[in-house]
């Protein structure tokens, strides 16, 4: 059967998938699907590809949601359709998504896919057609390779449901040679594969530990070996009889070699209504005690765990020597009796991890009576749906053993017991399984023993009661998993306590196990690869320059420099400017601003970052400190441009702060003998050092004198000359006044207005690092403190400070006297804030009142005396 898709004009998707392959390798079908990886889903394209000799299913990871070229497809996995190839339906009962899993002898673990429905679905082959194509191929080759087993997920013919395993080494489906073409597509190292979704930031890069786990898993085949374990499953419906005194040895010690793991299942341990209504869940210790006495004598055993629900009990016993290999064990139970709640029917299960594989044992007691086939199937589904372990449901285990009184009967009217092989054809379980209505993907060994039900207790005679129940194979053992081989499957006629005969089966199961030596090697190799991955996949940013030269910087002027940052790497880059210490959360000096100071750049993008410098009166003294006695440009600040998960880049802000009267202490200003504009920082720092010891050249700073003098001459009648709002702070005229003051202004006309002059005065007073008045004795601020003592405090200030203070207060006093609009409250508050800055928290009101005391009364006499001293 050929679907004809390929023969018609191939769709775009077909074309780009075909481009991945060489001539002679024909893409037969293309399916859009997704895989669950942890909690994430990842899109895949599955392609069935044929050569003359062999077929294989490729799974491609996609670099973007809609592949545009063949380079958007990255081979993620290859499933050669060889003898070990399996395609199984995965029914996740909790979510109604139809999934299927693929596995082959060359891939370590089966992979589960879910067909998806992209909006361009008609570009793809339908799921049905893909399956048909695969089966078409399988059927054609089945004659050559009669051992091939590919259970068809949706066909209803009877092929492929027989038992058997693939461990048989002979007659492999297709030789290595037929699949040699696949080698070209197996990628040794896809660590550097560039995923566009990662580059555009829509998908995160795997980090450290997760990458390590991912790689470890991918290289599993290099260190995982199969180790064979003997598993012994046993089930018995005891029909409510006390079995703690029965000799169980014929049932539990029947194998030649000592088993590694026992899974022992009972049903109807207790038929009392009390046990049913109370959902008895305490394991029956007396029965377990009897079990432990009846095991194979060739080894020491311990009980791993037991789980019970009313009459059902499942006990897992392990060889003491393998106990440390079991790293996880969980138990769970589900009642499917009346209302799907009662525990008289249902299932109990144990999930465990042995070495690297997960195993699940289920003991179930399904609905009774010949007619209840449907109900039994439903019970099976219900148990599958509700028997959940912490991370997985039953179907997610590598090996599953389902045992118990499944209660399937015979669809026979005649109670003549003839040939068991004939009778088995009427076995409801066989019929239901063949019709894919129950136990999909499970195997059962051939039944070579007589029905296990129903006997007259104490005898081997069929039920002689009135009901005259028809014999049936109620008690069964099934398994799921490719690496399990059944050795025996028997009932035990000798044990006659119940109306059921016990059943047991022994298995050899290949359990994935770490080869410690190999694991160590792979582990080391992967650590190195992860290092390489991390180092090679480090987000990188390119900056246009690492030095930003601001050249000359003047007080109160705004400067900016722009520089470009670009992302030329294959990953998105998150950058930010980083704070330099844990205590100081600033990313730069507070007279520098950066915009933007963080951002994200996807591959190929760039961005301009603006760094601004604006030195204001509050911060100028810090800049002066930084400039020190250096002549010319210095690194004013170093910005740390941090790339998330990457390196840091240092960006140096270079510049020279030009000397100005703003920011200098009044003492220094009183020592100058030439205009500041002509001075170097080396001279200024020298003067500053000397100013504490040497006599002042002038009694108060010329700059303050000039401003006050100007105001005295021109501004005495000005309205709102001193305002709390400081609305002239940002005004170009201020900078003209700055230059005029710094060149001593003698020659030229004052460039400003009374208002800008007043603002310049305020800025000059507030820009010095130390406030004009920093009272050691805070009592002076107390309104009740004698004014005489306040005057003494002023007297103690350095001469320039004292003179500035006196001159200023006299001027302000005069101003208030003369100017009818002047508000003494406002002026006292404004100057209080500027002149008295103390590290102590001095209330604004106190500062205002202190200044007010000076402004409200004439201090001419005091001032005259003081000036005399200086």
């Amino acid at each position, binding site marked *: 059967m050929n679907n004809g898709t390929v023969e018609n004009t191939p769709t775009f998707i077909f074309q780009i998938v075909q481009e991945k392959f060489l001539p002679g390798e024909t893409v037969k079908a293309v399916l859009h699907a997704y895989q669950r990886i942890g909690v994430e889903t990842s899109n895949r394209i599955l392609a069935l590809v044929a050569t003359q000799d062999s077929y294989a299913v490729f799974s491609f990871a996609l670099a973007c949601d809609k592949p545009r070229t063949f380079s958007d497809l990255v081979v993620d996995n290859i499933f050669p359709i060889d003898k070990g190839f399996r395609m199984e339906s995965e029914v996740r009962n909790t979510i109604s998504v139809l999934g299927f899993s693929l596995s082959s002898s060359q891939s370590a673990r089966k992979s589960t896919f879910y067909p998806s429905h992209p909006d361009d679905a008609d570009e793809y082959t339908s799921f049905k057609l893909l399956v048909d194509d695969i089966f078409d191929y399988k059927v054609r080759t089945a004659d050559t390779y009669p051992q091939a087993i590919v259970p068809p997920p949706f066909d209803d013919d009877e092929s492929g449901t027989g038992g058997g395993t693939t461990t048989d080494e002979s007659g492999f489906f297709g030789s290595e040679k037929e699949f040699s073409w696949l080698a070209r597509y197996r990628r040794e190292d896809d660590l550097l594969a560039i995923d566009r979704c990662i580059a555009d930031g829509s998908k995160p890069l795997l980090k450290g530990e997760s990458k390590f786990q991912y790689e470890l898993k991918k290289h599993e085949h290099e260190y995982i070996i199969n180790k064979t374990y003997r598993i012994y499953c046993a089930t018995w419906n005891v029909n409510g009889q006390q079995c703690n005194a029965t000799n169980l040895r014929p049932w539990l010690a029947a194998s030649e070699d000592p088993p590694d793991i026992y899974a022992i299942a009972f049903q109807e341990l207790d038929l009392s209504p009390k046990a049913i209504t109370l959902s008895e869940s305490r394991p029956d210790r007396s029965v377990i005690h009897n079990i432990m006495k009846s095991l194979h004598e060739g080894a020491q055993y311990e009980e791993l*765990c037991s789980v019970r629900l009313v009459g059902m009990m499942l006990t897992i016993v392990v060889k003491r020597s393998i106990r*440390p290999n079991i790293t996880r*064990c969980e138990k769970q139970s589900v009642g499917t009796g009346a209302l799907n709640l009662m525990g008289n029917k249902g299932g109990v299960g144990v999930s465990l991890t042995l070495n690297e594989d997960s195993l699940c044992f289920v003991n179930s007691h399904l609905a009774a009576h010949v007619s209840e086939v449907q109900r039994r199937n439903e019970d099976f589904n219900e148990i599958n749906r509700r028997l959940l372990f912490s991370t997985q449901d039953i179907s997610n285990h590598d090996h599953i053993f389902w045992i118990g009184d499944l209660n399937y009967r015979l669809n026979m009217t005649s109670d003549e017991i003839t040939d068991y092989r004939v009778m088995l054809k009427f076995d409801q379980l066989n019929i239901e399984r063949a019709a894919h209505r129950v136990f999909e993907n499970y195997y059962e060994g051939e039944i070579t023993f007589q029905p296990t039900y129903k006997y007259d207790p104490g005898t081997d005679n069929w039920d002689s009661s009135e009901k005259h129940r028809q014999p049936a194979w109620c008690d069964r053992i099934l398994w799921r998993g490719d690496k399990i081989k059944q050795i025996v499957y028997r009932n035990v006629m000798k044990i006659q306590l119940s109306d059921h005969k016990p059943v047991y089966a022994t298995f050899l199961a290949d359990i994935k196990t770490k080869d410690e030596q190999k694991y160590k090697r792979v582990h080391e190799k992967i*650590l190195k690869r992860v*290092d390489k991955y991390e180092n090679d996949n480090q987000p990188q940013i390119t900056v246009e320059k690492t030095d930003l030269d601001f050249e000359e910087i003047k007080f109160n002027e705004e400067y900016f420099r722009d520089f470009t940052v670009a992302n030329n790497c294959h990953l998105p880059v998150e950058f930010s400017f980083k704070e330099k210490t844990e205590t100081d959360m600033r990313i730069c000096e507070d007279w520098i601003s950066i915009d933007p100071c963080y951002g994200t750049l996807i591959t190929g993008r760039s961005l301009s970052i603006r760094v601004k410098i604006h030195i204001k009166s509050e911060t100028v003294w810090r800049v002066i400190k930084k400039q020190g006695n250096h002549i010319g440009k210095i690194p004013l600040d*170093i910005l740390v441009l941090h790339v998330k998960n990457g390196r840091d880049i*240092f960006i140096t802000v270079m510049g020279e702060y030009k000397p100005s009267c703003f920011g200098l202490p009044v003492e220094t200003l009183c020592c100058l003998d030439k205009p500041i504009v002509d001075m170097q920082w080396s001279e200024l720092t020298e003067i500053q050092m000397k100013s504490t010891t040497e006599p002042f050249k002038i009694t108060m700073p010329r700059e303050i004198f000039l401003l006050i003098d100007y105001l005295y001459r021109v501004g005495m009648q000005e309205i709102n000359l001193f305002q709390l709002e400081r609305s002239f702070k940002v005004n170009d005229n201020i900078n003209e006044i700055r230059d005029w003051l710094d060149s001593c202004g003698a020659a030229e006309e004052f460039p400003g207005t009374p208002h800008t002059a007043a603002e310049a005065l305020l800025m000059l007073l507030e820009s010095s690092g130390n406030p004009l008045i920093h009272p050691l004795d805070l009592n002076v601020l107390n309104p009740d403190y004698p004014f005489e003592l306040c005057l003494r405090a002023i007297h103690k200030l350095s001469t320039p400070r004292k003179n500035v203070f006196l001159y200023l207060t006299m001027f302000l006093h005069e101003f208030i006297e003369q100017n009818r609009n002047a508000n003494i409250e406002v002026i006292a508050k404004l100057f209080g804030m500027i002149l008295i800055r103390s590290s102590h928290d001095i209330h604004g009101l106190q500062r205002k009142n202190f200044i007010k005391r000076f402004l409200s009364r004439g201090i001419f006499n005091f001032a005259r005396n003081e000036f005399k001293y200086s």
Partner: protein
Amino acid sequence: MATTPRGGGTAQRPNGASQNKICQFKLVLLGESAVGKSSLVLRFVKGQFHEYQESTIGAAFLTQTLCIDDTAVKFEIWDTAGQERYHSLAPMYYRGAQAAIVVYDIQNQDSFQRAKTWVKELQRQASPNIVIALAGNKADLSNSRVVEYEEAKQYAEENGLLFMETSAKTAMNVNDIFLAIAKKLPKNDGAGNQGSGQGRRLAEVEQNRQTNNCCK
């Protein structure tokens, strides 16, 4: 009602097989400009050497893992800029570091003196348990040597430093010095012992990264 196996406790691996512990350590390289810090890292991490290695303006970050017995020691290496102008930023990188390599150039006496001041700074300001190694780099150019091996060796001994002369160019002692550090670092699990010299298990590191919580 998931339960742990009867008898409780975490299961142990059979035959005392290793759990292959991964310990992560922060290592910082310090030293004067142009002594070969980046070259040492490049040699150690990528096995390469560039005759003209660009000056590092910033702090480069690379990882490399060494396996010692059953423990994988993963170094998170911060290669810092050596230029004096960036000195004030060095604490950002040696803060929280469990190991440091202080590098000097055997042809340059100043760089040796500078190395000594770095050692002093680390002993004063870095984590108290920091493992410090002194590397006299460019050992392939011993013809123009000015810092004597014995002198440096003696200094290292007096200050409890690991010491090796290295050559990033010939690879001499490069792996060895990292290996020596790895051996000296404490590798116990550190549960309840959050000492700053402690390596962190990788899982913890992941968590810390997510919360942007720099190692303490």
